């Protein structure tokens, strides 16, 4: 019983670790707005941010995180 419980705890911890790795995001540097996770539902926020800065030069950079 104890062994089984230990396995379950380890399994839960492993799943939590995987979930954190996959979905736990990093934090942006102090002073920057939080990281925005784009989805189809909020993609317009990117456009709004782009247009909100019109009148100033804008740069879009597309990078891979690794």
């Amino acid at each position, binding site marked *: 019983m104890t062994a089984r419980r230990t396995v379950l705890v380890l399994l839960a911890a492993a799943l939590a670790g995987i979930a954190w790795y996959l979905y736990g*995001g990093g934090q942006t540097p102090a002073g920057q707005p939080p990281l925005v996770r*784009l989805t189809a539902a909020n993609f317009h926020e990117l456009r709004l941010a782009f247009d909100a800065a019109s009148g*100033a030069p804008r740069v879009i*950079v597309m990078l891979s995180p690794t």
Partner: protein
Amino acid sequence: MQGASAVARLLHTSKDPNIRVLVNWEPVIATDLRSPSSRVLARISDLRARQYWDRERLLSKAMGEKDRATIVWDVIKVYDPAARWNDRLPEPVFSDRPVVRVIDEAARALSFDSGEVTRRTWSVATRAGGGAGWQPTRSLTSCPTKLTDDKLHVPGVMRAGRYMRSTHVTLHLFDTRAVLRSHVVRLTGIFIQAV
């Protein structure tokens, strides 16, 4: 990661407080399983930056991604202050890759010399449909461009306040600061002379 560091250097060099840099992180290679870590995000710490995690590569698709071969990444695009994102993204005044190699050109496109962006103004000769021959245009601003080999295609140019559509112009580029004749105006370090 070199691209992110290059962008950080660009921002460090820039004196323009109004520049906005939208950093779009997206999964491209097999190891891109998760959103960028704090350490990765810290590479671009400038307060003029906004950072996004685009797991579905929505922006890349908006820019034309159709399959893996056409993923838009490791790219830097510079947009004119007047550009607005209406139904579709506007044409950038500069776009190239990989970021680490083209960062100096991107900085020149932003024209940091005076601390402000100098609107790109140049004069060219255009040849619209109908074979009317080359006609000198007035000053052009915010002209969307696409550089292919040694030809600069101008899909639409501003002339007398109106856009001429489907106009293609073949131009020679001169990498010099010498001001040439009236049809050649400085363009952030390069010059364009009509053919």
